[in-house]
């Protein structure tokens, strides 16, 4: 009807036609009448007829990036990818497991509606798997399992321990120096053949790291070292808040930082600066 009018260049109707393809919908119903259903799958893309005809009714289908509903009627009317939860979803527990470990560790619980979670506490050069477990007020659902990930990042990273919104990465001209292991050992000279030695519980690391700090330009990949950057870094280093510090070797420490020292290279026009700060491991 409409196609004929279009081919003629004029519409055969004197009113606007709202056709099905221009409309969105908010609900879908399956009706019965001596009918068995095995699956309902809705995609937010248009497939071709060959895609539909190739579907094997005997094989379970997977949730794909363009899926917006997949109901398999497996003793429930679940149509999302959170299943086995009869009550309303309230949030997610996020677990992490290191390859070879016997248990996973609960990292956090985030409320429903959280779009993204970032785990900053990984060690470098480890393989981790995660589980995202949907929860209600009283129940735990089946876990959603992303692919495993290998943390092959390179550099030293410094961030706020509690809310790591800003992360400083240091990987140029790094000099980590000696990281000392501070312990509490007292030797008593008793006028005996060998002294008495007492060791306390103290055991932490302390050190200083120097590097060429700056931000890598997203435009040309060059190092940008503005005075604002150094000012922000000095404020961050001396803000007296606990920080997470990750070494290139894969260590992860909770530390306090202080004393940002800056040494400019005056022979070069841009005066690139080497900076250093002291850090001390804390509880």
């Amino acid at each position, binding site marked *: 009807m409409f196609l004929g009018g279009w081919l003629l260049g004029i519409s055969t109707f004197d009113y606007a036609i709202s056709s099905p393809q221009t409309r969105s919908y908010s609900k879908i119903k399956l009706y019965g009448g*001596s009918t068995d259903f*095995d699956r309902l799958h809705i995609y937010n893309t248009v497939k071709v007829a060959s895609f539909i005809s190739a579907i094997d009714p005997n094989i379970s289908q997977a949730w794909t990036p363009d899926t917006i509903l997949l109901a*398999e009627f497996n003793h429930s009317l679940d149509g999302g990818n959170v299943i086995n939860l009869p009550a309303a979803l309230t949030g997610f527990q996020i677990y992490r497991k290191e390859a070879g*470990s016997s248990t996973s560790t609960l990292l956090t619980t985030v409320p429903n509606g959280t779009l993204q979670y970032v785990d900053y506490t990984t060690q470098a050069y480890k393989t981790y798997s995660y589980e995202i477990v949907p929860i209600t007020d009283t129940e735990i659902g089946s876990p959603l399992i992303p692919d495993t990930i290998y943390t092959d990042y390179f550099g030293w990273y410094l961030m706020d321990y509690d809310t790591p919104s800003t992360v400083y990465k240091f990987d140029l001209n790094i000099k980590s120096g000696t990281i000392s292991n501070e312990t509490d050992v007292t030797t008593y000279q008793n006028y005996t053949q060998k002294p008495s030695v007492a060791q306390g519980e103290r055991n932490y690391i302390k050190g200083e790291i120097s590097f060429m700090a700056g931000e890598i330009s997203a435009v040309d990949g060059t190092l940008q070292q503005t005075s604002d950057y150094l000012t922000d870094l000095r404020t961050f280093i001396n803000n007296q808040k606990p920080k997470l510090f990750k070494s290139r070797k894969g260590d992860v420490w909770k530390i306090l930082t202080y004393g940002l020292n800056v040494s400019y290279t005056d022979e070069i026009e841009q005066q690139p600066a080497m900076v250093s700060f002291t850090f001390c491991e804390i509880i």
Partner: protein
Amino acid sequence: MTPNGNAVDFASATTFSSQVNGSLITHYRDYIYRIDTGATLYDSTKLAVSPNLYDKDTLTKTISGGTITYTGSVKWTRTLWNGIAFATSKEVQFYSASTPTASLTVSSPITSKSNLFTTVYTQAESVAVESYQYFLYDSSSVLIDQSDVIYSQKLTYTFTGFLDASTYYVRCVITNIYGQIVDTGLIIFTVDYVQPNVYFTPEIGLNQDTSGVTLDLANIVQITGTSSGTILYIDPYLIANNAGLNIADGSSYVEFVVDIPSTFTQTVIFNPVGFMSGVIISYDDGIFDVGYDGARFYFSYYVAATQQFVYGIPLALNSTPYIIGVENDRVIICQNNIVLDTVLAF
């Protein structure tokens, strides 16, 4: 001198020991009495030490189980003779209390990633719990997790992160206010929980600039349908370990509230098990329907408040599963990987 400050259970044989300082010891006397009344509980009387003891030796004497039945705070003294003179020790306080017991029962298999463990503590004189600590071991009895020392009488702790199809051991060690320690020993349990049959893989990524591992939670959705009328689950159905849904009559339905965009594809697998006629799929309560009128599949929609029908070719239904694919402007009916009909809206 021991015991000293801790608790002993006189129901069992109890050893009293002290180090000898000074000269030769020939005799001793142990004397135990109640603190509250001063009443004597035990008096060994002056007995010979044989062989005699000397400086830095330890004098150890045992009181048979059941000799003292009193429970409560007591004191003891030890008097030593060297053949010429005697000396009596300072009074040493300790507690007479029955040995406590602890029972940790785990309902195995645990069907979750986490479990609240509870230990039942029993002590005849109701000596209160001071603290406890839980330990978790893997199947090889290697310690893999433990609680802090918890100063409470709750005796509960939750371990999380169990792996499916795994074996663990749990153990609780309790200390009461008299210093008595009771250990449940290793209690075995297995873990077996349901794995999802609809797999959705959330996106994961590593940010080299921050070292953060990013988990994308945006596409995780919970959609739960509702039913009206009579529905039944058929198990097994087409897919092994995956039930099907029977909607018994034409007035019953299952509804999903979900935002379907203007460009979409929907597939439904169904199987007629009797005479079928009427709407099969309805979008927004009849704004757009797909049905079978007893002979043909049709497509109905509203244009300017008028319901329009477009019919396909006559198809006699059989019991082999059909797939109805619905796209924006067409309905595609398939069976055995063959397109039987395509119904176009225009």
